[in-house]
């Protein structure tokens, strides 16, 4: 049965957010030695699957899914590209724990479970008519990639687009082909820096925050979107505020251990917020008092 050919009223069926929909691995790409991108196609056969699939494929930039490796468990993984006409989910993550390591050896044709999409999203509509500064550190480029693609797809709707990307070494740079393409795109200022250079590396060496004094944007009419290690975002916020950007124009994507992803279990509690439900994208103003608190 080909589900797409049948007209369903998605409002009539409410999939259980705790039940994963089944997806098939369609492609697997190693971005770096420990970071990989998988694309997934919907493979469920029930109406509930179909409704869940539509929501997942229409996820907003910045949202995440829970990916389930059967027999191992679930982890939250960033959606790293919007579903294109091929209607595939794209996820990028890094092998750091048991589940992501199991994910790193998936093959085309393997099945995984997907719950989601969850969480808040980047303010694409709110950035219309404004300069946009995107600052990514390490694998933090993955959750920012969908918003970059969305901005570039409607480039004339926005002012300056400035992308700053910091990686550990040149060989840790992800989405290299995208970065080359973005650099060539008119009206995009892209800066890449690495913490440690190599003999062959001819680009910048140093932390990503040092690029902020150099870039051009209008602080009164700019939205900044940040994703990376919390300490990197802390210094980035500081540098952006020194340039005159206000806290409610700075959006950060936060990360904590997640389990249920629907705000029930409390694993990802961050002060009065749950990262899974209220985040992961917050304005800096909302969480300013919570960042850099050892107890939180």
């Amino acid at each position, binding site marked *: 049965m080909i589900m797409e050919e049948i007209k369903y009223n998605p409002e009539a069926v409410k999939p259980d957010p705790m039940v994963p929909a089944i997806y098939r691995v369609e492609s697997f790409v190693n971005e770096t030695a420990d970071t990989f991108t998988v694309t997934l196609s919907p493979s469920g056969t029930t109406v509930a699957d179909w409704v869940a699939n539509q929501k997942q494929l229409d996820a907003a930039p910045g949202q995440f899914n829970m990916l389930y490796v059967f027999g191992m468990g679930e982890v939250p993984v960033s959606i790293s590209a919007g579903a294109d006409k091929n209607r595939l989910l794209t996820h990028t993550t890094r092998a750091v724990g048991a589940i992501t390591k199991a994910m790193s050896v998936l093959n085309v044709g393997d099945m995984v479970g997907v719950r989601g999409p969850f969480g808040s999203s980047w303010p694409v509509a709110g950035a219309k008519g404004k300069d946009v500064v995107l600052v990514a550190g390490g694998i933090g480029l993955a959750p920012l990639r969908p918003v970059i693609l969305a901005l570039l797809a409607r480039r004339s709707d926005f002012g300056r687009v400035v992308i700053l990307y910091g*990686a550990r070494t040149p060989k840790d740079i992800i989405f290299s082909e995208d970065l080359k393409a973005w650099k060539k795109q008119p009206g995009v200022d892209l800066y890449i820096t690495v913490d440690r250079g190599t003999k062959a590396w001819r680009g*910048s*060496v140093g*932390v990503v*925050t040092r690029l902020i004094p*150099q870039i051009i944007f209008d602080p009164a009419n700019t939205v900044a979107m940040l994703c990376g*290690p919390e300490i990197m975002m802390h210094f980035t916020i500081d540098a952006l505020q020194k340039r005159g950007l206000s806290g409610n124009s700075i959006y950060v994507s936060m990360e904590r251990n997640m389990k249920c992803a629907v705000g029930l279990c409390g694993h990802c509690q961050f002060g009065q917020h749950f990262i899974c439900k209220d985040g992961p994208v917050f304005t800096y103003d909302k969480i300013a008092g919570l960042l850099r608190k050892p107890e939180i």
Partner: protein
Amino acid sequence: MKTLELALAKHPFFYNFPEEYLRSIAGQAQIVEYKEGDILFNEGSDARKFYLIVKGKVALETYAPGKGAIVLQTVEDGEMLGWSWLVAPYKYRFGARVSHKTEMIVINGEELRRQCENDPRLGYELMKRMVHAITFRLEQTRLLVMDVYANRANKK
């Protein structure tokens, strides 16, 4: 204002710097273009110059046996390079190699140091800016030491 004074006044390091001092510093400065691969100074050499990068990129390097030259950091548009001219024993701590065509304002550091000794107001104004720049550099170095992008799963 003459060309060099204007160039100094436009550089972030000298933002809002008293005009009379800019005039005297401009007297010991020149705008120089360097090409890729030019060596500005070597590690341990006498620190005689103070560099302000207008546009371009310079790699700060050190040498490690068996590894060759290691780039510690690049210094780029609007940044300053070299403070050893101000700090005894006036020897550069690292080497500097131009990694992309670079336009710089090069100031005679020895003369500037002499002027600072003679005019503490100039010395203090300059010192505040040097400390600000050095603090920024120290903050970046601390962030680098934290190795924030490392895969913790690979750490013992």
